[in-house]
């Protein structure tokens, strides 16, 4: 029996390893069959950062992949140093995905690759950890959702503020906000302002450069494979490593970078995990067709009147703007709330339903991860709707069921963009 099959067949038995050792009464011991394995695709920035480049008794790093030889070499050396282990290195992500020793595929590439790799991994029966933003178009996100479902995979979209950590500059975790909103004390509908004034910076330094001049491709980089499904454009170093976020072909600027971090929790707080806004309005200078620029304000409206306002460059409200505003109350940065004695009132209510936040445990028990391909798709869609509106410089209306813009073919063409041959989803 192959290692992987052994693990799966004994899946149920392995449940015992997740119960506290006091229940088992035995010493803490992990049998090799309980240890999952992972491979990381994209070991440039995020893929080599400490939270992601891990190898431990629950999940061992066995493979790495990159189209930049230098990155690959650095990653292997890092694994040797840190884990005293030598992962297999791959140039082509398909080889990593189809490596029978890999259980979990960790996708840490630029966003234009996320959908292709997720679908490929799902087809190969692998579980998936995908970095935010989930995909760079709404159509690609839909495709990931389908493939994950069809192949019954566990998918983790990686941003975490809906379940842990202080939510950037907001000065609180998300859970009490969720509780407050669910309690109805603020009334309905709600308006959420995501702004420098409420603790969120939109990182406008992630802008692209116009007038890029062609440069020779460095020897270590397979540029054709780096571009993959993206349209061919002559190489310039600014397109790639570290600065790719400034180009529509690969990402969505500061909005693409931070949007899902900032908006996924808002979607959770508002209880919109299964729907999308019906309208997006943008106030921005005209965008260049290649290089992403800045914007001033983006306004989303849901069918029930809830709104999300993103305040960008030069458009920040004063520090007295509430993070969430409802007809009956407001809550500000640091959980300052207009409702008297709010903490005690909230304490009388049950905490929000528990979330499955242990990815390895989810894989073993086959329970959906708290932030998965379905709600992750929805929060990526919030970001991607605005990307379309910015590129066309107009207000767009959206059908959250059909996942299409209403009465705007050009906007729908941005939802489903044909890929560069031979790439296909």
């Amino acid at each position: 029996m192959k290692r992987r099959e052994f693990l799966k067949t004994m899946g149920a038995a392995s449940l015992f390893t997740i119960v506290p050792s006091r229940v088992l009464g035995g010493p803490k011991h992990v049998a090799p069959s309980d240890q999952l394995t992972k491979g990381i695709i994209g070991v440039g920035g995020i893929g080599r950062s400490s939270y992601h480049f891990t190898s431990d008794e629950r999940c061992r790093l066995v493979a790495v992949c990159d189209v930049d030889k230098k990155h690959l070499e650095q990653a292997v050396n890092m694994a040797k140093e840190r884990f005293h282990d030598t992962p297999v290195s791959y140039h082509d992500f398909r080889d990593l995905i189809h490596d029978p020793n890999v259980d979990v595929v960790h996708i840490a590439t630029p966003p234009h690759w996320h959908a292709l790799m997720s679908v490929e991994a799902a087809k190969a029966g692998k579980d998936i950890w995908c970095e935010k933003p989930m995909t760079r178009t709404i159509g690609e996100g839909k495709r990931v959702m389908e493939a994950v479902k069809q192949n019954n995979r566990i998918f983790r979209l990686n941003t975490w503020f809906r379940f842990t950590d202080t939510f950037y500059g907001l000065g609180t975790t998300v859970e009490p906000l969720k509780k407050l909103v669910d309690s109805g004390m603020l009334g309905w509908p709600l308006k959420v302002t995501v702004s420098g004034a409420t603790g969120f910076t939109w990182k406008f330094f992630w802008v692209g450069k116009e007038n890029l001049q062609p440069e020779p491709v460095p020897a270590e980089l397979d540029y054709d494979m780096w571009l993959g499904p993206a349209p061919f454009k002559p190489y310039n170093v600014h397109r790639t490593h570290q600065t790719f976020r400034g180009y529509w072909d690969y990402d969505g600027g500061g909005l693409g970078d931070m949007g899902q971090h900032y908006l996924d929790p808002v979607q959770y707080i508002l209880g919109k995990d299964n729907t999308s806004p019906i309208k997006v309005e943008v106030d921005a200078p005209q965008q260049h067709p290649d290089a992403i620029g800045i914007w001033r304000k983006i306004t989303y409206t849901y069918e029930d009147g809830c709104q999300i306002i993103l305040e960008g460059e030069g458009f920040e409200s004063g520090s007295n703007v509430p993070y969430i505003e409802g007809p009956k109350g407001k809550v500000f940065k640091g959980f300052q709330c207009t409702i008297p004695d709010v903490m005690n009132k909230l304490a009388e209510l049950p905490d929000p339903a528990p979330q499955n936040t242990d990815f390895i445990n989810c894989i073993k028990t086959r329970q959906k991860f708290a932030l998965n391909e379905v709600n992750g798709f929805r929060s990526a869609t919030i970001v991607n709707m605005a990307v379309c509106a910015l590129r066309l410089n107009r207000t767009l209306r959206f059908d959250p069921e059909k996942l299409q813009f209403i009465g705007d073919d050009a906007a729908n063409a941005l939802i489903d963009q044909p890929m560069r041959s031979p790439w296909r989803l």
Partner: protein
Amino acid sequence: MIMKKIQSLIFALIIALVLPTQAVNAQGTRDARHRTTATIIADGLAQLPAKDVTVFNTVMNEIASTGAAGVQSLADMLVPATEGKNATVEYALAGLAAYVTDKGNAALRKNVREGVKASLAKCTDKPNKAYLISLLQQCGTAEDAPVLVSCLKDDYLKDFAMRALIGIPGTEDVLLGLVSEGADKTALAYAVEKKQLAAAEPFLLLWKNGADETQQAAINSALAAVGTKASLPVLAKAAKAVGYAGEATNSYESYMNLVKRLAADPATSKLAVKEAKSLWKNKNLAANVHGAAFEVLVKALGKDALPYLYKDLKNPDIEVRNAALLNISPLADDAVCAEIAKQAEKAGPYAVTDVLGWFGARKQTSEASWVASHVTGEQTDVVRQAAMHAAGIIGGEEALNSLVSMLGSRFSDDAVAALTRFNGKADDALVAALGKDADVQAAALPLIGTRRIAAAKGKVFELLSSSNDVVSNAAYAALSGVVRPDDFTLLADLAEKASGDKRMVLQNAMKSALASLPAAEQYKGVSERLSKATDKALYYPLLAQVGNADAINALMDSYKSTGTDAAFDALLKVNNSSVIDRLFELAAERVRTDAALNRALPLINAANFTSIRKFRYFSDAIDLNPSASIRNRYIEALGNVPMPSSLDLAVKYLDNPDSKEAAATAVKTIVAKSAEPMGGDAVKAALVKAQDIFRSKMASDPDAGYAVDEIKGMIEKLPAEGASLISELTPEEKKEGFVMLFDGTNMDNWQGNLDNYTLIDGAIYVDAAYGNGGNLYTKKKYSDFIYRFEFQFMVLGVNNGVGIRTPMDVDAAYEGMEIQILDHDAPYYRDLREYQQHGSVYGIIPAKRVKFPELGTWNTEEIRAIGDHITVTVNGEVILDGNIREACKGHNVSPDGGANEYTVDHQNHPGLFNKDGYISFCGHGTGIKFRNIRIKDLSKSKGKRK
């Protein structure tokens, strides 16, 4: 700088434009403003990138309206990318392509399409051609297909052209034609898939013979998307050949997708279901394939697929069981769920565990009692834990009772976790649990506390004296959650007798008991006890919670008289901006400078103070010489108040080894956020220094690299000069004999309250509290004059005034004259009298009501005082023009010295007719700035004027 660059680029473009567009001009194409096409385009380009949607729509409409020839002339301006100057033209072209796809602008679409095509025909640069094709992809129609087809022959362009053909609606026939020719199989198969070209199936099937892996993958995918049953055996064979694995030819996935598609069509459903069944039965297949087959069965057979599920529940592979459950979810009504529960019992504990998890995730209330039955009784540990988790989510009476029954057991922690988030009220059951044995009581008490179950209060007080220490301690800890204001006295009685941990727990309980009351009532309760208490420190934390002025004073007094840490610590806990000044007092005493300043910072940041006031706190804090870490926090905070003074202060620390990183962060933020653009050599030098600091940090901190890039961008855009802080007379004013009283550089012409009227960033900033510290006066006296100045309200409702012909240190409104300065739009001035409005001669002549612009905007004002004639002009509008003697019929004081029926405020104004006096600012509070103050003294020429 940037502007200049764009202008020179535009100029070059206009030159370039003149030649190719002569033909257009010759045709006489001119718009309503008689501009030629070349001018329209040049005007348009000068406005790009459009700063907002209005400009965008105007410019795009104008350019698109110049017709195909105009658009072509624009597109012809593209030059090879190596020259690096296409950006503005690209903005224009991309803007046009987007603009004409908006429904309302459809009439102009043809102009853009034709113009782009004409330019494409002429263009020789491949990347530019590719770009023009991408424009057609966005705004083209089927009519453009032939041009695109011709581009398929070019290796560089073919991918762009094919994507455009796919993107443009209505190109199906053209694509089918290409399929029949079969040139680029991979690309065409992809087109077949995307455009759903069913008629292509026979060709695809033919192509499969001899196709390489890449072609196979595209062909298989296309067959999955459009194929009929004719494709089924072909894909079935291919999938089998690769062992139903994901691999390069995409055979398995294509096969599964085709089966799925055919199953959804009644005509082929039977056939497809047969395939799915045989896959499902194949024991050698991976779980994801097995699950996908089951998905097809569920969709095609509905509830008839349930027996397959029941079998899957017996499968030893956890993935198979859970995949089956997820796939059945849409069909799982209450009856189905009941049957699944039954089948799971038959299948064994693993299946039960999975079903419990599944019920929990879908909040299956109809199965609450089945779930509850697995919380109690004989279970494996795994089943019980899964049941407890699900019971908490599902809620209901049975779930609640089952969970409560586990309190105090070996699974107490799991029960507490489930009850903490229990879906519904758990009060009665938890109160009842307090009547059980000690283990249950000890487990239930924390839940009583955190969920604030007031109904348990009596029992909690009772358990304080439990003989079991664990229970007693838990009861103390739970007090906070159950007590209310009327328990305060009892708690205080207990607390005054307690010591150690119990004293602290009771202290917290007292805080909690009072928390729902308004501060003043809390204070009353606390101060009554405090005055009689011997252990006064017991109440300090309560005073900190009260946090109003009385409480702060009481704490401050206690600290001064006792010097204890307890009082000091309590002051650190006060959450009210009025404690900030006290914290600074404490910091200045240098006992615990760091602690006081550390606490003050978040309060300052959160307070609704003007930026100048905040700056002063930051600057004072740094002057108090705290440790480097606290100083650095204050230096970074300068970034919250982006103004020149903040920059000056931050720059001083760029060379300080302990503070340079904080200073660099502050410098970057201040320059980036400053409302009035900063510029000039000094600012640039500061940025360069900051950039160097970030650069040296890059190795250890990846974010530092972003900061380096960000500063680079800032330096590129930095204006040669920033906004000037120095005011100057206009040439006219110079000629007329005005002199500067305040030009932003010094306070030389002023006397009086120089503590609360201070020079900051080129303005006089006022932070005089009402009735405190006195007013600001000119050094000279004036009788007749024209007085001009600018003022800015920084906070709502600011009140100040210009005293004229007034002696020093008296109320100018009566002992001289006061021209009112007031942000009268603040809502709390609703009942304001007219003679109190801004610009009025206070109490004598009302001014016309001014509508002020937003807070933070500079206003201009002129006060003309010539004899009895007063004129006030604000923002260019005369709002008062009257004679003070006439206004009160000569009776500035009533004949009998009592109420004055001649003045509008019925007051006596003995100084109204003063011949001369000082000019003053009469502060009533903080939050106003003055600048650019000048005067023309008419005293000497008075005779001549009359």
